[in-house]
């Protein structure tokens, strides 16, 4: 396997630019590559590729059939063109769909994980050593196409909580997987969901039994390492009656000149009185200052509040990726159920984001809340796209949406596309939107108090994003705040 080490480009500060424009020169901290031998599928996509992946994972026949069905459907579909993003056509035959670090022995326990992989995760701030781990957080570590280990499995197991890789779940909990997989995002849902269903390689599976509150945060860390590969992971979380779980995902990738595709599907199922809190800190490599390279993050995330009084809350801090296309959504089927979406999306340099949510009110007395904060800098483009749908039987539905945009400099764009479909007269739907700019006067005010410009920008954007940041689990809020500041480092200077 070819390995290269990419050095971050030197910062060039142009005196001609205004102070605010200069802030856009950030460096990506996680751009290193781990030298490790990989077991890869041949490049390209056909039924043979799918059989290869399924065989590698020793999957049962039903799983292979499910994948092939998705693939055959995908062949008939067309890539969506409605998002407000631009990119060259993706050559789906030029992607490696499966790449797994070669491990001589299959690790039976966390101690047996290849030290090189362990170091990779440690460099990313993720320790697979349970003793060193932040107490209260269990981690599933996924590199390229496979999960290399999950911490705190036994402790969670004692409560009946299943937290493992999707591959393991297919082997060990086939009934649960068959019952819920694609029950929220059908394989035919959209182009990227169909592609994911055909070739997905790993991801996390969480099952919280009736009446159990998960005593710790469950989290998955996704790392892309191999070149020319795509990462297609699949996550499924099922919260039984009266249960509660808070789940967090994080992600990074090496710096490369080529774009890499990441097409994930996440499904959440909340039964009666259950609550799922799903948080994302997305920091895929965003490409360089000229817009070369970076991850295409085309993701389908959807949850269903299936039972009465259930609740699903999405919180996302999106700072990475060359292009982000995702709409974490909630189907509010159970009466009195609640859906929430809190988002901070930062775009810098030439990044593009088209992100938002869909709240589908089907049950009675359902409530949803949308808070979206877009921060654009450099030459980037940041769009909020959201749908609030109230079905004709969904009496007394309530929605509140707040979409705010903050601009740094005058070469970036912010757009808001709110769609509202109300078919029941008792619904109350509110939408508020604002656009503001970080002004030279705000920066100068901070400077005059002794605060340098970088710190001033961090204070201003964290103030702007506060309502969303405080939704994050405590352990990650501080990290996410720093990440916001780093993503915009140099955009004012």
């Amino acid at each position, binding site marked *: 396997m070819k390995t290269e080490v990419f050095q971050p480009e030197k910062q060039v500060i142009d005196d001609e630019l205004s102070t605010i424009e200069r802030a856009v020169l950030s460096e990506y901290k996680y751009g290193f590559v781990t030298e490790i031998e990989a077991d890869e599928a041949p490049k390209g996509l056909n039924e043979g590729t799918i059989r290869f992946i399924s065989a590698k994972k020793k999957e049962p026949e039903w799983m292979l059939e499910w994948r092939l069905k998705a693939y055959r459907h995908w062949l008939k579909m067309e890539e969506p063109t409605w998002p407000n993003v631009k990119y060259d056509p993706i050559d789906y035959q030029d992607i490696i769909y499966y790449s797994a670090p070669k491990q001589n022995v299959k690790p039976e326990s966390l101690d047996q994980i290849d030290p090189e992989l362990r170091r990779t995760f440690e460099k990313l701030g993720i320790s697979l050593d349970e003793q060193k781990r932040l107490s209260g957080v269990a981690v599933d570590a996924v590199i390229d196409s496979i999960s290399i280990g999950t911490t705190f499995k036994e402790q969670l197991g004692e409560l009946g909580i299943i937290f493992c890789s999707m591959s393991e779940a297919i082997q060990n909990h086939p009934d649960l997987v068959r019952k819920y997989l694609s029950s929220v995002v059908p394989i035919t849902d959209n182009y990227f969901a169909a592609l994911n269903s055909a070739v997905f390689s790993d991801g996390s599976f969480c099952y919280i039994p009736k009446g159990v509150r998960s005593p710790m945060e469950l989290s998955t860390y996704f790392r892309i390492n191999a070149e020319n590969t795509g990462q297609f992971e699949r996550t499924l979380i099922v919260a039984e009656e009266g249960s509660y779980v808070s789940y967090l995902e994080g992600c990074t990738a090496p710096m490369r000149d080529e774009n890499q595709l990441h097409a994930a599907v996440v499904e959440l199922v909340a039964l009666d009185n259950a609550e799922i809190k799903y948080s994302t800190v997305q920091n895929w490599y965003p490409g360089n200052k000229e817009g070369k390279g970076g991850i295409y993050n085309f993701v389908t995330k959807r949850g269903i509040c299936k039972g009465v009084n259930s609740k699903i809350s999405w919180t996302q801090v999106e700072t990475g990726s060359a292009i982000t296309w995702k709409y974490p959504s909630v189907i509010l089927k159970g009466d009195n159920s609640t859906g929430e979406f809190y988002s901070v999306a930062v775009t810098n340099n030439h990044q593009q984001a088209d992100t938002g949510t869909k709240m589908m009110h089907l049950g009675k007395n359902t409530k949803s809340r949308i808070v979206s904060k877009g921060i654009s800098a450099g030459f980037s483009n940041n769009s909020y796209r959201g749908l609030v749908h109230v079905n004709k039987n969904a009496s007394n539905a309530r929605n509140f949406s707040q979409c705010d945009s903050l601009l740094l400099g005058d070469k970036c764009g912010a757009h808001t596309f709110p769609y509202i479909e109300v078919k029941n007269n008792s619904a109350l739907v509110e939408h508020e939107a604002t656009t503001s700019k970080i002004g030279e006067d*705000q920066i*100068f005010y901070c400077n*005059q*108090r*002794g605060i*340098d*410009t970088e710190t001033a920008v961090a204070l201003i954007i964290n*103030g*702007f994003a506060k309502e969303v940041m405080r939704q994050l689990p405590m352990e990650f809020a501080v990290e996410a705040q720093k990440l916001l500041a780093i993503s915009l480092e140099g955009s004012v200077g």
Partner: protein
Amino acid sequence: MLTIRNLHAGIEGKQILKGINLEVRPGEVHAIMGPNGSGKSTLASVLAGRSDYEVSNGSVEFLGKDLLELSPEKRAGEGIFLAFQYPIEIPGLTTTNFIKTAVNEVRKYRGEEPLDAVQFLKLMKEKMALMEIGQSLLSRSLNEGFSGGEKKRNEIFQMAMLEPKLAILDETDSGLDIDAIRIVANGVNKLRNKDNAVLVVTHYQRLLDHIVPDFVHVLYNGRIVKSGKKELALELEERGYDFIKNEVNEGQEA
């Protein structure tokens, strides 16, 4: 502590200050008065280091350092404080958090250890009592939705927290009623001591009833055209700025 020599400065190619000379010593209060457009606020902005303004000539020395060489945050570190005419709003950032960051950044500049939460709170309580300012104001987003009076009191509170060597009050009385002026002026007076100095930039004399200056300078057309003791301010109040303008114009004709 502050020596301004032959200072020329302007904005977008327009010359506004045309040769300012001023000496401020520790313990002194100087008032800069003048009609609208005379360059008062420009002088305040240039001293604080606002980048829109270009200095074309002259020098400013502050405590032995060339002030014009320093960035605005370094000037703050050196002990320059500007109370803004129009304090800026930063939504979502609590006033307390802002002030804590400022205090610790200035401490860092001076090579001092940052204050921890307990020490900071203690200092804040002390200054809150001195400045008669309530906790509720400090818990709100910085200047957001503050009344004119609250904004100015917040400026003076920040001054109390940062303990500057030279405080520049830029039209701090504008938009305030007489009670608010008294509160703000009391705050400033409590902070005066023999080691610090205050530069009061104002259009009207009324603030000077409460912050009594040692010297009054009249700025007109980018120059200090007249200096005197506090009585000069009263004379201006009585006779208006026209008599100064006439004097200057006659001088030029002669």
